[in-house]
């Protein structure tokens, strides 16, 4: 089963997100991650859903989403070429001895330290899901206290080859 990144434009009205999430629940589709925010147009929200499923299921998901009256556009970015980012905040145990190494790791992943205390550091990182996963793996041995991830946001790539 392949992971699909589905970008949905939906009327920015109360209940509209509920229709999308409810559809996934009612029809037994899976959601790996979901992120929601306004788009370039205030009256339209962009929902990015990552879902796993074989081609038949993904085809049904897209058709069913298109049937929702409040949904104005659905694109399966998986076949389009797209740029994706996820933001993560990781609170990791830190002390005098481990702090320098943690700061090094943070630098390698081009992330930022946004909170510090005698016993912890909070690191903010953005990147692809793989990059975020890799960083979390590196931090695990130090003792992760809390993680908050936004889920994937994505846009279609305009020209192949640019970052």
């Amino acid at each position, binding site marked *: 089963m392949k992971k699909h990144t589905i970008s949905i434009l*939906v009327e920015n009205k109360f*209940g509209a997100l*509920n229709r999308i999430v409810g559809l996934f629940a009612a029809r037994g589709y899976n959601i790996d991650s979901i992120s929601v925010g306004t788009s370039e147009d205030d009256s339209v929200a962009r929902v990015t859903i990552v879902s796993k499923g074989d081609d*038949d299921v993904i085809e049904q998901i897209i058709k*069913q989403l298109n049937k929702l*009256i409040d949904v*104005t556009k659905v694109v399966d970015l998986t076949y389009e070429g797209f740029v994706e980012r996820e933001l993560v905040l990781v609170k990791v145990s830190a002390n005098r001895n481990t702090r320098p190494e943690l700061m090094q790791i943070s630098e390698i992943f081009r992330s930022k330290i946004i909170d510090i205390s005698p016993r912890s550091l909070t690191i903010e990182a953005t990147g692809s899901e793989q990059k975020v996963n890799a960083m979390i793996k590196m931090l695990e041995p130090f003792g992760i206290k809390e993680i908050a991830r936004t889920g994937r946001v994505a846009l279609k790539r305009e020209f192949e080859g640019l970052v």
Partner: protein
Amino acid sequence: MSSDELTGAEIFVKCLMEEKVEYIFGYPGGAVIGVYDAMHDMSHIQHILTRHEQGAVHAAEGYAKATGQVGVVLVTSGPGATNTVTGIADAYMDSVPIVVFTGQVATHLIGNDAFQEADIVGITRSITKHNFLVKDVRDLAWTIKAAFHIASTGKPGPVVVDMPKDVMASRTAFNYPKEIKLRGYHPFYFGHIGQINKAVEIINSSKKPVLYVGGGAINSNASREVYNLAKKLNAPVAMTLMGLGAFPTDDELSMGMLGMHGTWYSNIAVDQCDCLIAIGSRFDDRVTGNPQRFSPNSKKIHIDIDPSAISKNVKVDVPIVGDVRHVLERLIPLVQPLDTMEWLKQIRDWEKEHPLRYENGDQIRAQYVIQKIYELTNGEAVVTADVGQNQMWTAQFYKFKNPRSSITSGGLGTMGFSFPAAIGAAFGVKDRPIFSINGDGGIQMNIQELTTAVGNKLPIKIVILDNGYLGMVRQWQDMFYKKRYSHVSLGTNPDFAKIADAFGAKGFVTDKTDEVEPILREALKINDRPVLIDFKTVEEDNVFPMIPAGTGVEQMLDYPKSVNELKTTKDRVEATK
């Protein structure tokens, strides 16, 4: 406050007049008391007070199915709204255009667990085509226009409009929009010409075609086009339960209904055909059985307005997304007449070997009752069937000649649907008899609507095929659960004829075959009130043919010579080669 401003309640009435609504099926209550006040003096719209909100929704469905117009329901908040849920789900499954207006507590109370509050928009989200909560009176007219637009266009379906009490009391200027633009809603009617051409290629090279016609053909008013296509191709026609009447069942090309309890020959023909043209049908599991084994030798063409119906259950070779009527109009001139003489003869042979049949005796057979109703009404009545054995026997033995005549709950399978649906149909159709076919179980689920039918002097013929059982469940327990009849006996049934009389209808009861026809004739003469006929039928009768759920045609069972003998024809494929 300017004097030309109207309250929400007044705007509601004006909007319904703009939509040329004739009937509202409803039930008042606290949250809609203001709306009902505005309706007190309305002259162009008739309000039909049902005796339960579920009855109101099924009546609106019956009206919509019989006329093609949008059915309208008005109920109060909380329990009034939740009582409509079954009817809404029913309309969603069978693509029936209805708009259900629900009262709601005042906006400042929403979310407070107020008296008679229910989140009906949340509750109905997955069983409506769309739903609205009107939070500002200035949005009301637009919302109502949008609701009617969404319900009646594309693939039809139910729309709920939730109307808080304070919104309906506040005032604004009334402007009814001329048209509605929804940027996320663009039903596609015309069908892609490239796909149509591909379909034509397959059809023109076919030797053994079958038309598989569903409710979409009726919803798009495409009966004439279906007829023209069948006649041009000389192709046999199988109809789904929802498609009955889309093609005249008494025509020589008709094979009647297909599927689990369809005719033997239609199911074999679908199995053996080389080209299956699915027209407004959705490869439902009651039609396909095991989808892997469904019509294995055919190229499949699927015309449907709903893209999500395409390849949902069965992979098709040529999907055509579009309105059935529009697509057939473009397809028919492109296809060639086919030489199907041998194919049709083969099907007639199958029919001779395995006709729809039953043996008559002194005790009434349900099949005989339906057969007689068919004969006495010449196939031209509007017949609402309930769910279960009575429904299947109606589908088998009433040979519908016209579309919008067979009205039944196909997708959801709602017991208690038939009678209130007949009430709605009786308001929409005045020039043909209306029959409501019921089991003794289903009739008791909405029997309170006798009051509604009597009060409105509706000449509905209510037929109860009374076998003292929940017949279809008993049949399954008989066939698949070692005859362990678990809680299916309705031994303590009331005296239905007396109940009818007590309500002010006319009641009949008989258990004799030779009284069936005389009573039906007498019933057809009574036109000022409903008639209820309690036919005490053979208790343990099963519906055949039957393809057990999830299997294929090779497991199809024909009517046994005696009721308890089941004949499995595993050698069917050999026999038919």
